[in-house]
């Protein structure tokens, strides 16, 4: 098929909302590819990447004893070495017990309350983000591999629907910017695929580590849409879809982005 026809087909099927992942024939591309050489160097060098401060804070919490005298380290090793990077890269996973998907941060909350006996934290509480950044960083370099079949399917589909639905007063879908116009400039900002492989991510725009759900809120706010609380069911579904859409990309936590 001539490429002209193919791309026309791609655009039509995007608009009909039938494209999955980054779109057929559209390889997922990390936001890293769109960074300047200086920002790439900054991300790569542990000493100049400011996201590592959050990793260190997470490491500190990891070895801090909870109400029952135990710390995360008691079960998972001082530096989390007993946690399997392969498993970390597969989150969100389906929990038979809860009968729904659990995000990596969700699992950390469970261990926090159930295994350390600590009072529950809000989703995206600063300490929860610190721990998540530390744990995800343990899997840096692993390829994301999220299950989309079986019991995960309906959640993946719900997240996908969210991604393709135009909302807000500006009436745009995530796919408009992160699929249809990748590489174009929105004012000075080059649009990327909006991949999730670097999260939690250090943003130069606000000089701190941002969770994935915070980024959802920021982008929805841009569209003048009613954004939700971090950890909402819609955002969990969207996280399932977004991470699955990043399948195959290497984890870069803590990535640096604008």
């Amino acid at each position, binding site marked *: 098929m001539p490429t002209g026809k193919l791309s026309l087909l791609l655009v039509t099927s995007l*608009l009909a909302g039938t494209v999955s992942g980054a779109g057929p024939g559209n390889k997922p591309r990390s936001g890293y590819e769109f960074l300047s050489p200086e920002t790439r160097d900054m991300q790569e060098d542990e000493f100049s990447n400011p996201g590592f401060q959050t990793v260190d804070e997470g490491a500190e919490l990891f070895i801090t004893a909870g109400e029952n005298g135990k710390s995360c380290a008691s079960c998972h090793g001082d530096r989390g070495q007993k946690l399997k990077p392969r498993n970390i890269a597969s989150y969100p996973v389906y929990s038979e017990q809860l009968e729904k998907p659990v995000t990596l941060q969700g699992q950390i909350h469970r261990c926090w309350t159930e295994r350390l006996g600590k009072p529950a934290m809000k989703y995206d509480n600063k300490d929860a983000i610190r721990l998540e950044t530390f744990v995800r960083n343990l899997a840096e370099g692993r390829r994301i591999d999220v299950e989309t079949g079986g019991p995960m399917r309906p959640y993946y589909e719900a997240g996908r629907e969210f991604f393709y*639905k*135009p*909302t*807000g*007063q*500006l*009436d*745009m879908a995530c796919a*408009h*910017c992160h699929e*249809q*116009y990748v590489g*174009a*400039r*929105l*004012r*000075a*900002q080059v*649009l990327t695929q909006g991949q999730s492989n670097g999260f939690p991510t250090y943003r130069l*725009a606000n000089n701190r580590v941002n969770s994935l759900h915070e980024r959802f809120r*920021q982008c929805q*706010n*841009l*569209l*003048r*849409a*009613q*954004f939700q609380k971090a950890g909402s069911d819609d955002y969990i579904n969207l996280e399932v879809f977004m991470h699955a859409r990043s399948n195959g990309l290497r984890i870069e936590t803590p990535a640096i982005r*604008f």
Partner: protein
Amino acid sequence: MNRYIPVLTSLALAALFSGSVPGADQKAAPESVDYIKWQAAGYAIAKPLGSLTGDPAVGRKLVVDRKKGNCIACHLLPVPEAEFPGTVGPPLVGIAHRLSEGELRLRVVDIKQLFPHSIMPGYYRNPENYINVKKKFRGKTILSPQEVEDIVAWLTTLQ
């Protein structure tokens, strides 16, 4: 006054649309009760909204105002002082050569009448068509009829 004063530092560009400035333009957007019905024919809206007269000098400001038209986010415009025009939409330089006043009006009011899946916002689209709008913008159009006419008046000068 809630008119935006453009501050063009590279960081200010992070806030591409006004959503990130809570409460700033609460009073600026018109209420839905004021919504003026319009009619498109031949891919154009021939008559000005509410029979208003646009001011091209005001229009020129609105197209680069991040809280108003913000057309510059996506289009190259002949406004040299506005840096870093976007490349999402086609350049609008000389657009009045190709499109009549009425055709320009329909594109600003509700381009989705022509391209149902366009990324370009409908600046005077019936607010009933929007889904999941943030509270302070609910029931409101992006621009007032006067602002639409100001922008259309400026666009017709782009010969």
